[in-house]
């Protein structure tokens, strides 16, 4: 994963800043209709760029692709370094896709301060893109923190619950608390790099070249774990999640539930940089226990929820438990399944939040008391509800099945107990979804269901259909997606298997091999960036002072 490919065109920078520029552009507009159209236009263009990125991405490769690098703060070794690899590529596409859907969803549902709302959504997209395309740790951290600003305003200004102010503050402070610890972890990594090379660097690719002493890895691991666990959120750091998801607007819930930033961080930083700590038996047992607790506890709590949005929150915690379980199974299937499942949740959990939003717009809330027998009035909604819900509980043929199957496979390989407990989560998931579905959608028409209940509008149907397309595509033909992630997942796996020191030696050998093969290596428009620089020796000309 040390190899870097350049694209010759700063596509990642454009992806990163386009939504922000769009948000600034919106500021100058006055007409609400024009604002919506511009926001949608920007989001669609961003999606088109993301699709282009996916098409040009070289699958089955562990290389960092579309790399761009500029010095930012050389005194501390911080650079503006963007690149995507198999771990992050799908997230870029997912974020662009979800943003389009959110803008479509908000078209009529957000009336109050529409301009500021669409500006916040686009600004949020920039920060999320930034998280996925940054491979400099500080740059990553910048976007990680910056994401709090639009999120805070989204929850606070357009939240639907009574407690939205409390929820917004809680979300910001909890995440901040975790991330300051993460920052210490990052600084310690950089300091370790400094001990060996006498230079500072926060560049992931630099840090990967220097092994971290095994004794220090555990400490750094837990520091970074704090940041990721709060954001993910891993049980028991999840207490902000119910507040934020229930009180916030649907758009924000979709992002928080659909884009799995925290667990992405494990694959991106913890595993490759700290392989010995990540495979440490104590760490694995602790994290796996948390994951299993989340799966079972989340699902059981979900069964008891009378409010659909709260049910989704706890199902989301339960699903996240699966993702963490797959990650810390520490084998290829587990990692691959987790990565795919993170993407899947962006379609299924997020999709269910959209459906909750549709219901909310019609009924004024999503309480079970107000539902009942809706199927006869809204057949379309009932159908999509069933499809997305089935995908969420992992019915074969849908994307959820592929992800959960791979995760369970990985978990059973790690230890049968993990697999056995996790399977119970699948059963609970079927229980809470089907039971809720039966009571809310089928059966006699509820007392509080309004007489005039419109079925899905055209706009809403587009959202639901596009989600279903993705669900079935990944469910029936997952190989293009898996091919994209395989190379990088294998690279992470190699580092986990061989430990950091052996991996670094191996990387050096592979790189010198790549140098020899350079002419063939020039695939498409990309070229290996000056291979010598990839194994930059401590003698760095760029004045990185100690």
């Amino acid at each position, binding site marked *: 994963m040390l190899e870097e490919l350049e694209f010759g065109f700063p596509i990642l920078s454009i992806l990163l800043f386009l939504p922000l520029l769009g948000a600034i552009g919106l500021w100058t507009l006055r007409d609400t209709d024009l604002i919506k159209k511009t926001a949608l236009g920007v989001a669609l263009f961003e999606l088109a760029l993301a699709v282009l990125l996916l098409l040009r991405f070289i699958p089955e490769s562990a290389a960092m692709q579309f790399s761009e690098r500029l010095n930012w703060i050389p005194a501390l070794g911080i650079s503006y370094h963007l690149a995507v690899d198999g771990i992050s590529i799908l997230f870029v596409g997912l974020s662009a896709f979800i943003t389009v859907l959110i803008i479509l969803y908000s078209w009529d549902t957000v009336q109050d301060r529409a301009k500021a709302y669409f500006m916040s959504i686009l600004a949020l997209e920039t920060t999320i893109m930034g998280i996925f395309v940054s491979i400099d740790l500080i740059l990553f951290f910048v976007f990680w*923190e910056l994401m709090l600003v639009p999120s805070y305003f989204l929850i606070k200004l357009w939240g639907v619950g009574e407690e939205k102010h409390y929820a917004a503050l809680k979300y910001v402070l909890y995440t901040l*608390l975790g991330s*300051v610890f993460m920052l210490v972890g990052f600084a310690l990594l950089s300091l370790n790099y400094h001990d060996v090379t006498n230079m500072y660097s926060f560049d992931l690719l630099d840090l990967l070249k220097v092994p971290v002493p095994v004794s*220090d890895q555990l400490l750094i691991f837990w520091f970074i774990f704090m940041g990721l666990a709060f954001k993910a959120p891993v049980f028991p750091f999840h207490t902000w999640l119910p507040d934020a998801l229930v009180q916030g607007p649907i758009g924000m819930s979709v992002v928080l539930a659909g884009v799995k930033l925290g667990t992405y961080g494990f694959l991106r930083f913890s595993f490759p940089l700290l392989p010995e700590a990540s495979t440490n038996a104590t760490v694995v047992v602790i994290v796996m226990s948390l994951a299993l607790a989340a799966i079972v506890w989340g699902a059981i709590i979900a069964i008891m929820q009378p409010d659909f949005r709260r049910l989704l929150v706890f199902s989301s915690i339960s699903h996240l438990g699966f993702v963490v379980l797959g990650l810390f199974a520490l084998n290829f299937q587990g990692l691959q399944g987790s990565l795919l499942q993170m993407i899947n949740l962006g379609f299924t959990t997020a999709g269910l939040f959209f459906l909750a939003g549709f219901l909310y717009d019609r009924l004024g809330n999503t309480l079970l008391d107000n539902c009942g027998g809706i199927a006869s009035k809204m057949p379309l909604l009932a159908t999509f509800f069933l499809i997305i819900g089935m995908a969420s509980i992992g019915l074969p043929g849908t994307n959820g099945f592929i992800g959960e199957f791979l995760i369970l496979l990985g978990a059973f390989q790690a230890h049968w107990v993990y697999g056995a407990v996790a399977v119970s989560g699948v059963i609970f998931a079927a229980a809470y979804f089907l039971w809720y579905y039966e009571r809310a959608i089928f059966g006699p028409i509820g007392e509080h269901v309004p007489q005039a209940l419109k079925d899905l509008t055209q706009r809403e149907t587009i959202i639901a259909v596009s989600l279903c397309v993705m669900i079935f595509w990944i469910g029936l033909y997952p190989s293009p997606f898996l091919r994209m992630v395989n190379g990088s997942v294998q690279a992470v796996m190699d580092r986990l298997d061989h430990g950091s020191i052996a991996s670094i030696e191996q990387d050096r050998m592979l790189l010198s091999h790549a140098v020899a093969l350079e002419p063939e290596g020039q695939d498409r428009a990309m070229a290996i960036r000056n291979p010598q620089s990839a194994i930059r020796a401590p003698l760095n000309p760029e004045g990185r002072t100690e």
Partner: protein
Amino acid sequence: MTFDLTLSGSDLLLLAPEIFLTIWLCVVLAVDFTFKQIDHENLAYLSVGGVIATLINLIWFDYTGVQGALFKDMFVLDGVAIFFKILVLISTALVLLASIDYVKSFKFFKGEYYFLVMMSALGMMFMASAQDLLSVFVTLEFSTFGFYVLVAYLREDQKSSEAGLKFFILGVFAAGLLAYGISLVYGETGTLVFSEMASAPGSIGLAIGFIMIFAALGFKIGAVPFHSWIPDTYQGAPTPVTAFLSIAPKGAALAILIRMFYVALATFKPTWVLLFVVASILSMTYGNIVAIAQKNIKRLLAYSGIAQIGNVMIGLAAGTKRGSDAILFYLLTYLFANLGAFAVVIGVSNLIKSDEIEDYNGLNRRSPFLAAAMLLFLLSLAGVPPLAGFIGKLYIFVAAIEQELYTLLIVGLINIVISMYYYLVVVKKMYINEPHDPTPLSVSTPLKTVIFVGIAGTLLLGIYPKPFIDWAVDATLMFSNITAPTASDPAILTSLAGG
């Protein structure tokens, strides 16, 4: 000890900025006396022009590398001195601009106001150059006298008089401590020059003397436990003076602190590091916790300033070259964010005559510009990336990690979370609450200029900090040999993991 006061032309060149500013402030005073009917706004622009000319002079010195020492090392012009002089002058220019509307509400002595502000600035420029305990005392008092008058400028306002009195009594007390400390140090070492003290052996007298000097300087920078004057004085003083107090004297006093501890006391580093660790932890924690309960925005910024000084002292606690770079850069970021925030406060109080946080309700509806600017400044103060404050905090924390100051680090990090809370409370009031009175607020051009400079500085230092960090690194080159960084020792992390 004899003084040789023969000066050559090239020696005087080193004093050129101070000499020029002295002449200029006399000119401003003379113009005020001579042309009675002159508009005071023009007087302000005249003053700002002089300050900017001095600033250009200093930047030119920095660029061409003019350096040297005068009067047996009592006055020194080096990288650190130039840096802090520029810091003081930028804040002076911004404060002068921000004062224009405020001064209009004064009944008399409008012209003298500008004179006094520049006078204090002159004193602080000398402070930045002080390299000798005698000049420390003289310059410190010189700059403080201007402030005694400025703080009590609103004669009709009881709060202002109270603030002036509190500031005066405690200030004089601090001056007494300083003089006593200096005499003890002189008695022990037989010298007043920092560089000559470096070789003195440690003794109880020396320690007590330096602790007294530290207390006096701690009073200037508002570090806990010498902070008690800050909230009342900040609240009572005219808001532009509060803004000035919140940055310029702190910067100048830090210049002296850095020099004194890095040069005179370099050999006793292990001892004074502890002093700064304690002062830093107390300042951060006290400042942030008490800030939560504040109802007045000036008091809130006062306490947040105490906490920020706690952050700055992390750099002193590190006691390395990098620590000093970090302090310099941090002060730059603090200058823009803090002055910007005060400029917004001035703008609001000019229009609604109130500094209560309650009255910031719905500011976004009344003036989106002021609200957005305030949001930016508060986020920078809280250290949200990619604004200036984040880079400043990051830099200073890296300096602390290098020196294994983990307790300090953890306290500092937790404090960031606490501070976020009260900054967000203000943000909430501005953006969420409904205004009591929805009339739009308009901001005058000079004040707008100050706010725009603040915004530009906050963004630039955050997004493209390289030239400024380079500047800070160059300015402190003379501290390169203070203590060899111990970070090359891989045992750091090991010992950390162990305990």
